[in-house]
């Protein structure tokens, strides 16, 4: 077990180094730098000003030198200063990550809470009218562009009915959980509708396959009730593919949902990373993407543990031994 964890940690460090260099390099390859962007927005800036500012921000140095300087500082816990926000990077991320976890966490829990029972129900009655209806709902959720869905929700619930705020995270000057929940309803709904379809489809397919297994047929032949067959015999095995999907989406849980955040003016990680990349805010983009990478790796690690829990045939030791 120890060897396995140590191996995974080593792998993760290598992946993080490669990702950080790739991201830094790719942003650096984009045309223009922060000062070029500044010049476009200010016709009064002279070429001399641009030269002076590039030297001040260290942008006149080769990209590899800049990356190594960043890496050195990051190793000492200094992740730099965000140009887009005028604050230290960790302060910016600290204020955003909680919002993202809140929004995407609720949405993920809600999606699973809807998708798992619906998927099971559809699997138990395959090709029935209800199964077709569930499938239609799922495909609609998967196919509707998030931008359009968000707009539709705003128009219906904010403009027409006036029930919910159209955007933001809280009423200015108000505090309290209820106000925050009100602001979260529409973005959570938009994200949930978009993700519940795919989760349901995975659950349904996996459950149908599991229900065809010999051991399920045996259980039924022994007169075990459907409820018991599903909950005690089939569900655990049917969840394995879903765990993989959830593990893969773990990174996006923290890197945010760009379109939904933009449409609802939700201050999350997705919009922050997007703006950081476009605005050449190297420090912020890098740390944001690194966090997403770390969490994706952590998600995959947890998924591996989850397989062991769900399927006794899988053991970490055997996986480690195979290396």
């Amino acid at each position, binding site marked *: 077990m120890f060897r396995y964890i140590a191996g995974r940690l080593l792998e993760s460090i290598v992946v993080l180094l490669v990702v950080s260099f790739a991201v830094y390099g790719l942003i650096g390859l984009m045309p223009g730098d922060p000062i070029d962007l500044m010049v*476009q927005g200010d016709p009064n800036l002279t070429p001399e000003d641009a030269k002076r500012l590039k030297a001040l921000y260290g942008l006149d140095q080769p990209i590899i030198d800049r990356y190594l300087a960043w890496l050195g500082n990051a190793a000492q816990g200094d992740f730099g200063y965000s140009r887009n926000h005028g604050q230290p990077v960790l302060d910016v991320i600290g204020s955003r990550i909680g919002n993202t976890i809140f929004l995407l966490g609720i949405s993920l829990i809600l999606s699973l809470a*809807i998708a798992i029972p619906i998927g099971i129900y559809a699997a138990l*009655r395959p090709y029935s009218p209800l199964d077709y209806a569930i499938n239609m709902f799922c495909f609609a959720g998967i196919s509707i562009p998030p931008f359009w869905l968000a707009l539709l929700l705003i128009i219906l619930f904010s403009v027409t009915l006036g029930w919910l705020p159209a955007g933001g995270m809280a009423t200015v000057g108000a505090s309290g959980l209820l106000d925050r929940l009100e602001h979260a309803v529409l973005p959570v709904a938009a994200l949930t509708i978009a993700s519940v379809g795919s989760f349901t489809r995975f659950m349904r397919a996996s459950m149908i396959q599991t229900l065809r297994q010999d051991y399920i047929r045996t259980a039924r032949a022994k007169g075990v009730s459907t409820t018991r067959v599903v909950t005690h015999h089939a569900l655990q095995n049917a969840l394995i593919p879903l765990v993989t999907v959830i593990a893969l989406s773990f990174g996006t849980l923290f890197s945010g949902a760009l379109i939904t955040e933009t449409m609802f003016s939700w201050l999350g990680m997705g919009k922050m990373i997007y703006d950081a990349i476009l605005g050449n805010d190297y420090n912020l983009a890098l740390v944001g993407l690194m966090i997403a990478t770390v969490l994706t790796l952590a998600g995959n690690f947890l998924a591996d543990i989850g397989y062991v829990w769900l399927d006794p045939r899988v053991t970490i030791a055997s996986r480690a031994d195979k290396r």
Partner: protein
Amino acid sequence: MADKPIRNFLRYWLGAIALVCGLAIAPPAFAAKDTLVIGISQFPRNFNPNIESMLAKSYVLAMARRQITIYDPNWKLICLLCTELPTYKNGRAKNEKTADGKDGIAVTYSLLPQAVWGDGTPITVKDVLFTWQAGRHKQSGFGNSELFERITSIDVIDDKTFTLHVNKRTCDFAGISGLELLPAHIEEANFAEPVEYRKRSAYETDTTNPGLWYGPYRIAEVVSGSHIVLERNPKWWGQKPAFKRIIVKAIENTAALTANLLSGDIDYIAGELGMTVDQALAFEKRAKDKFDFEYKSGLIYEHIDVNLDNPVLADIRMRRALLHAIDRNAINQQLFAGHQPVAHGQTNPLDTVYNPDTPKYAYDPKQAKALLDAAGWSVIKQGIRHNAKGERLQLELMTTAGNKSRELVQQVIQSQLKQVGIDLRLRNEPARVFFGDTVSQRKFPDMVMYAWVSAPQNIPRTTLYSTQVPTPENNWSGQNYPGYRNPVMDKVLDDVETVCEDAPQKKLWHDMQRLYAEDLPALPLYFRANPFIMPKWLKGVTPTGHQFTSPNWVETWTAE
């Protein structure tokens, strides 16, 4: 196959989820009428007025600060923080020689006697001196340092009066809007290490400190990326503003911006930072009865830069033919409902230096065809012109991808040029690549369409002077992207800066506009308009059309 317990479980499960969602639904709290909520499409990156220029920042700071001089809504230079503008006549402007014998000028200003920072500390010459010293420091991170460099010394006359000694005598000496005062009593300590100043400035670390602000409002709350709350400044010396609070919300997506307006989450979409004209026109059709719409054209000059190193386009007959072949009036009427007036040069007709006698190129396809024939493109094959060598008249027009207005205009131009036998190909790039690479390094083969933002009485030195052509030798500096080189224009640009007597200066301005129209280094299209979408109860908002935005007069805004 499903038995009753599973059905029951599902029923209760989904019921519980619906209940949780339903509980969270309640009518939203709406802002009271003593609060004005403004929607803008950008959020300021920082709040220090001297570090990086950005429209969203200028918009917000206009409510919380007052520049020494600015242009008013009638495009006249006025004092906001000073008692009177310096002129030779009132003795506040005097010619002098610099230490190295050049023509310099001394200009004297007096700050308003009643002007104080939001914490009650008087605004004095000490603040002027600190700002100037910080601006001159190479590592302070200030954006535009030209003004600070030009000021060689400052004489303190008294607490409120000072004389600037400027090492270059120019006609626009009276305007010093670039000298954005900083509170010495707060910022001096933060400037101890100049290289760290942009991070340690109280504008970033303590933005709600009342001592930073001296406008009708002061910043009371900032939620980065979301909103800024401004509250009345109790120390403000001028007219008391009508609204107790102003909330500026950043909503970047324009569809969401309009939905927020319709739902009442915001009251007003700022013209300076809101929607484009085509978006506003579409919205106006749906919400004409609920809001007032005002379209103010201004200093954003949409044009097509022509690559003059391309032999086809170096021929002035070709450039004139192109302009005769484009029906700019139809573009304005059909796409923008007449709100974006046709430009005949880069100087806006609202500018006091505008020359009404500038040569104009009316839509005249016949004339365009004649000019093309004369330029040697007279053989027409399958509707497209060819020259004697059999070369096809094919040009490429590039612009920013995703900008719907420009893409629409591009398509109209393509079809209009086809009618005179020009095969126009369109190729667009993301703004980042377009400006960061293609335009700034002159990589476009034929033509690029974009806009310039300028100021009233702006001398277009960086865009027209022959030494301002970006080249690898000058490290791609300068903004003369067409590659325009005309010694006569250079002379006019030099003189218009320093010949200040009314009549000769007026002639120089007129000569500059005439030369531009005759040489056509760029094809003028139209002046972009800003759509202001206001609730019917909001009065007193006066769009300016230039870089000094409407909130500079926020104290006159009222709810009726």
